[in-house]
């Protein structure tokens, strides 16, 4: 009897769902059918060697890469297919890039307000207020008038996070957010991600930060050769992975 009530809960619909995702470049298939669901408020880490397809999979989730086949749903709504309002859906999917991709010709505040003004059509005052609130959340309200080139890498990435969260997305995609940072700047960015999680943000993260994954993730997905090899809670994967490939990868990357 109990399952019926479980199904009736709104959380039964994943915030983000990937089904049978394939991606090929010409004759080369790099994703061989990925199935993945991210529940509301869940933080899922995707681990795997470079070339395992994890970034491609992530970039398919807002169709920066066009899936070759398969379906992707945002809160049950398909984002794949020809008829969908892709721009409308993308404003609900925040993305943070390895190389930050801040707009160098705009100051920090206008980096954040640009989409608020052009996409959400907010007025200047409202956009400014929302941008300042987002910059406050990443601890950079004081840098609103600075240009990206005047900021450290860690600060730039936090501004990029502010730019994404200001849109109030349903889910955030992180594509190796700390890989381009000097080691001493990584902590600030991870700190912001930790706070986002505490505030209930749904997140899908591709990263090599093993320690952070183990401590903060709700679930870890391990990918190899374009497939999901195994997934589970961090402790299970780190201490009792079922597959040899997972064990090899984790031991190699967690050695101090």
């Amino acid at each position, binding site marked *: 009897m109990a399952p019926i009530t479980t199904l009736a809960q709104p959380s039964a619909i994943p915030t983000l769902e990937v089904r049978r995702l394939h991606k090929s470049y010409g004759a080369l298939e790099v994703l061989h059918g990925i199935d993945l669901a991210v529940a509301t408020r869940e933080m899922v880490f995707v681990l795997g060697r470079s070339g395992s397809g994890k970034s491609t999979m992530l970039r398919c989730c807002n169709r920066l890469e066009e899936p070759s086949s398969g379906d992707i749903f945002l809160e049950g709504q398909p984002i794949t297919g020809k008829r969908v309002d892709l*721009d409308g859906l993308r404003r609900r999917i925040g993305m943070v*890039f390895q*190389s930050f991709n801040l707009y160098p010709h705009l100051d920090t505040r206008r980096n954040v307000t*640009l989409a608020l003004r052009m*996409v959400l059509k907010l007025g200047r005052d409202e956009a400014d207020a929302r941008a300042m609130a987002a910059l406050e959340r990443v601890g950079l309200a004081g840098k609103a008038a600075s240009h990206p080139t005047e900021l450290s890498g860690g600060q730039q990435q936090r501004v990029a996070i502010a730019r994404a969260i200001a*849109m109030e997305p349903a889910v955030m995609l992180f594509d190796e957010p700390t890989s381009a940072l000097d080691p001493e700047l990584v902590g600030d960015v991870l700190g912001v991600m930790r706070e986002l999680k505490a505030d209930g943000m749904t997140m899908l993260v591709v990263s090599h930060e093993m320690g952070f994954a183990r401590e903060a993730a709700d679930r870890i997905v391990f990918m190899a050769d374009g497939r999901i090899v195994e997934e589970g809670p961090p402790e299970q994967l780190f201490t009792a992975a079922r597959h040899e490939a997972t064990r090899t990868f984790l031991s190699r990357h967690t050695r101090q």
Partner: protein
Amino acid sequence: MDQLLDQFFNLEIMAAAWPTILRGLGMTLLLCLLVIPLGVIGGLAAALTSLSPRRWVRWPAIALVDLFRAIPPLVLLIFVYAGLPFAGIRMSPFVAVAIAFMLNNSAYYGEVLRAGILSVPRGQAEAARSTGMTHAQTMRAVVLPQGVRNVLPDLISNTVEVVKLTSLASVVSLGEMLHAANLARSVTYNASPITMAALVYLILLWPAVRLVSRWQRRIAV
């Protein structure tokens, strides 16, 4: 020596020719005011279409740009002014010059702007599109401002060429500066009006040329 000065720097003749040359300068500036904006707008259209992901948009655009870069502008001008009347299309010299130069300039501005757009890292457009901005919004607010800045020296260089190119209009008897100076030369049997026109071009364009050189040196460092 005196003869040289008399033939090329005759102040008396220069003073007499000045009103004519001034009128010619007016026509030259008017042409520039028309032809430069048209060329930039046409060039923008050429750049955006020749970068289109749609093959049936991109290929004709690239073919047209190639065509108008390969045809000498003087040939194009004479074709439009003196060739098209054989097809029953007649126009004033001014309109012919505007059309011929717009086609030529658009092709060149198009190549410069295309290089500018391509100089902007892909991640810039990806970041903008990931926030839900449309392709057009991304171009206008993110890619073009950076791309134009990256090729500003080339845009100015190209504009200098356009200003010089307007002197070709003299062959269809449009009274721009060279035409005016040449008229004054043929009336006075003296080359000083041509010297004068050359000096006016120099004064007009030298600052731009200097500016571009300085920029390029700074970028090279």
